[in-house]
């Protein structure tokens, strides 16, 4: 019987689900409804600091992996049976977004 590679993506999905459940509501409130939040100086400071970089990468990367994994399952729920190609595209998209965030963070010093 063929072993599924879901454990990799499910772990990322789970980590993203946990992170978004914990910090999602507050983050969305702050970016959407609080004009004082995330001023340039503070945002820059955060993106320059090693721990801050890690936090930003985790939020963007894990949110993407969480969201894309569920999106792909939702297509199946709607009766659109995605093949392995499209499935790889969803996970690839999340990986590309994470990589982009990592590159941008590396450029901020």
């Amino acid at each position: 019987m063929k072993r599924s590679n879901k454990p990799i993506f499910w772990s990322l999905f789970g980590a993203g689900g946990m992170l978004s459940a914990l910090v999602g509501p507050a983050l969305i409130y702050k970016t959407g409804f609080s004009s004082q939040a995330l001023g340039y100086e503070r945002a820059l400071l955060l993106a320059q600091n090693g721990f801050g970089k890690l936090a930003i990468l985790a939020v963007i990367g894990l949110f993407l992996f969480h969201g894309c994994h569920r999106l792909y399952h939702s297509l199946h729920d709607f009766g659109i049976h995605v093949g392995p190609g499209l499935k790889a595209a969803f996970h690839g998209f999340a990986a590309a977004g994470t990589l982009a965030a990592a590159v941008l963070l590396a450029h901020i010093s």
Partner: protein
Amino acid sequence: MNTITIECLRYHPESDAEPRFQSWPVPFTDDMSVLQGLQYIKDHLDGSLTFRWSCRMAICGSCGAMVNGVPRLTCETFLRDLYPGPVRIEPLNHFPIVRDLAIDQADFLGKLQSVKPYIIPDAEPQGTYLQTPEQMERYYQYSKCINCLLCYAACPQYGLNDRFTGPAALALLHRYNADSRDAGKAERMEVVNTEDGVWGCTLVGYCSEVCPKGVDPARAVNQNKIESTKDYFFRFFRK
């Protein structure tokens, strides 16, 4: 005595291209179950109505049907609670209809077999097995499954993809893996680890809501996602 309308989905393969509803007024008393309502129809109104039952006491698992859209054991669902009706009875969702309310269980029976639902000891047993109440508690709720298939009728993932091993078979798989007398976990993990094993589940969670026996298949399936993940990553260290 009150009367309630029972609408039943009917399908006779030799004459029907697709299922159709038929309804009958059924007189009932307070102590009558939906199953007894169906039996009244069969005995007095239409002898050709086909449905399965045996124990009439929620233990054989053969009388499951959709009652007003919800998977139920018809022998423990009472007409008085559905009054004034009408009551709509359909065969369990997601299964092929053989005739009227009788569904084809063959797919499930194959899956049940695939999870090896029996104790596989690691050596010839030497006398009585000893087990503490704590050890028993780890699998006890899963051992109460009566194979009624209500959980499959509740699971859209099974409806969308019938290769999915599904709630009861995975709960029973876990029942044996969690048993201290068993040593067959490695064999069963092969089923767990496949795309159509635990990974066919998106945790809709309705299976555990409808189970008439207090089994929590959603828990068995999702805890085995963790088991499968451990199995995936740690296999490289084990050898």
